[in-house]
């Protein structure tokens, strides 16, 4: 334990713990508590997904299956606690979810992991479709459309905590984030965890060394499914209800988007992604009905121009600080950020104008001036911003090219 902690450096963990401790203190309103709790569940879910995508190179379109099945395992356990024949504290439900996810991963992972690469992605999609359809059919087991509900306050109070208040639940979930993160980090240090990197980078080599890549994939997949199930168990505590649509293709795609935007190249990236996207998803609809477009656009742009996600940006800055290059890089960063703000601003003004004109909603207002799709003001503004953004980008590109040329001349 201490060894892997020191291998990571103890400081980041203490810092992580401090951040988690601060969250319930600054979460003033119950909306904040609710959103933070939803984010907490997604953080563990996204971290488990990254065990597949980031570290194992396995692009899954069906990871929510294990989240959902783990959630069902936990909600059934919660009902058993309510009925009084399961002597388990409610706080330990995520462990039940973990077991459920692990079991489901071991069984369903076997056909899924038969192939790697693109066929794996398609297989995970097929298995996901299959399970989602089956869940709706077997309404006895999955509770039909309404799902299965429980009451987290029904269990015996542990140290006087009944989980009646959202604040108590949030603290519990944050505790689980810490434990799960620690466990997942520990897994990366195990031989199997290391081997998952190897099968991502060079499966032939793994086979040559004497490991069966298919078996390694299956084991990694099973562990990832277990942690997905743990997140499902957290969801069971948080929402007190698990429905069949939680294991559908929608949530599977959603976790992919969260994880990728956070950054799949670092261990902590998915934490950022999950917190960011969950907050976006819960608060953005208050401002625009087209928020899914922004999410999609953000994702595509990330794939094209920032494949390392948000955490990639963090790492770049960190590297620059370490190399002492902040001062010389700063102007370029400012230019890039300005260009991005201009392009995003121009694009979203144009999008909002069309959307609101189409949906006959109230027009977009900027500093009290309504911007209408059939008026010129908005379009001129959007075009100006777009041109300014593009110009900034061109300027940057030329500087970079110029810099390279200078380097070569110097050499």
């Amino acid at each position, binding site marked *: 334990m201490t060894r892997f902690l020191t291998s990571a450096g103890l400081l980041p963990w203490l810092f992580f713990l401090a951040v988690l401790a601060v969250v319930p203190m600054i979460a003033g309103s119950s909306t904040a508590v609710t959103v933070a709790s939803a984010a907490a569940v997604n953080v563990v879910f996204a971290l488990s997904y990254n065990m597949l995508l980031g570290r194992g190179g396995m*692009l899954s379109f069906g990871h929510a299956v294990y989240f959902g099945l783990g959630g069902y395992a936990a909600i059934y356990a919660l009902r058993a606690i309510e009925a009084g024949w399961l002597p388990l504290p409610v706080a330990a439900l995520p462990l039940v979810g973990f077991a459920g996810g692990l079991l489901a991963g071991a069984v369903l992972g076997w056909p899924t992991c038969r192939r790697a*690469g*693109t066929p794996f992605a398609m297989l995970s999609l097929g298995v996901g479709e299959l399970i989602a*359809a089956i869940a709706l059919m077997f309404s006895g087991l999955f509770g039909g459309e309404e799902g299965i509900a429980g009451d987290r306050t029904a269990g015996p109070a542990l140290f006087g905590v009944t989980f009646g208040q959202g604040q108590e639940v949030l603290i519990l979930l944050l505790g689980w984030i810490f434990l799960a993160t620690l466990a997942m980090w520990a897994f990366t240090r195990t031989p199997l965890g290391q081997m998952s990197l190897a099968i991502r980078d060079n499966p032939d080599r793994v086979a040559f060394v004497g490991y069966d890549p298919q078996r390694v994939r299956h084991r990694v997949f099973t562990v990832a499914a277990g942690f997905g199930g743990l997140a499902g168990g957290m969801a069971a505590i948080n929402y007190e209800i698990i429905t069949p649509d939680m294991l559908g293709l929608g949530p599977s795609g959603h976790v992919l988007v969260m994880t990728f935007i956070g950054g799949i190249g670092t261990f902590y990236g998915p934490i950022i992604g999950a917190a960011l996207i969950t907050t976006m998803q819960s608060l953005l609809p208050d401002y625009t009905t087209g928020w899914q477009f922004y999410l999609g656009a953000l994702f*595509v742009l990330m794939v*094209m121009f920032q*494949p390392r996600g948000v955490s990639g940006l963090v790492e770049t800055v960190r590297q620059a600080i370490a190399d002492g290059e902040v001062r010389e890089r700063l102007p370029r960063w400012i230019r890039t950020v300005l260009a991005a703000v201009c392009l995003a601003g121009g694009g979203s003004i144009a999008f909002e104008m069309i959307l609101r004109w*189409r949906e006959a909603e109230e027009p977009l207002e900027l500093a009290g001036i309504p911007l209408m799709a059939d008026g010129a003001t908005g379009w001129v503004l959007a075009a100006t911003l777009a041109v300014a953004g593009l110009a900034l980008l061109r300027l940057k590109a030329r500087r970079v090219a110029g810099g390279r040329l200078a380097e070569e001349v110097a050499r």
Partner: protein
Amino acid sequence: MLEVILFSTLNGLLYGLLLFMLSAGLSLIFSMMGVLNFAHASFYMLGAYVAFAIGVHAGFWTGLFLAPVVVGLIGCLVERFGLRHSHELGHVSELLFTFGLALLIEEVVKLIWGTQPVPYGDLVPAGLKAPLFTLFGIAYPGFKILVIGAALLLLVVLWGLLKKTRAGLMVQAALTHPEMVGHLGHNVPALFMGVFGLGCAMAAFAGAFGGALLVTEPGMATALGPIVFVVVVVGGMGSLPGAFLASLLIGLLQTFAIAVEVSVSDVLAVLGIDLSGSSDVGRITLAQIAPILPFLLLVGIMIVHPKGLMGVRES
């Protein structure tokens, strides 16, 4: 009994060929570029919407033939300015790009045409909708026969293009030896762009028919997408004959499963196990699970024969 067999065959053939029109383009793109286009069904949807948009002004036939051209050009642009960019970052990145593209296309379609279905089916000329023949009291509209004919024609044209033309030979050579083709002085990137565009155009062609036959709405891509991937994986990644075989197999399997009245408890009764009356499992019939049979087939094939029916390439 005869009527059930006849109509199941016709309907299965129609559905299977529609799937083939879609999966052929997907398979072609995959075997050429090694990327599975997650947004392929989105180009199918675009085909339907573009055909509708053109058809409203210029008539059904113009829309039907112009939509593939327009969508094919859109496909070329996507390849040139998007996919090529992520191609350098590896296959996972490409797949993610097309996944994001699918999300984005759906949002754009909603922005332009709204979330409700558009009445594209009403554009089909009345003459085509009229029954071509009536057998056992069931009418079969001429439009459905037209779709079957168009799909078969597409198959022949595609085969001819690949086997008999210079461009086709180049494509075939580039499948296995892209560097060599490049060294011989051919423009491989342009070839890639052309193939991607062609694949998208074929999807759009299928969409222009499928949208009129079924329903044109923003969810149509998500509804059909997974089935098309099943076809491609079951048929064997990148194998055109495999895709053809798998399309027909899935089309016929699904329609015949609906026609047959067998439940799980019936099957178990033959084995001497009595399940009737108890639980959800016993009451499940073959017809009930027909639409998810393709996914069962996928899992089954992967367990028995991971390369697919006619698979050649690992990944």
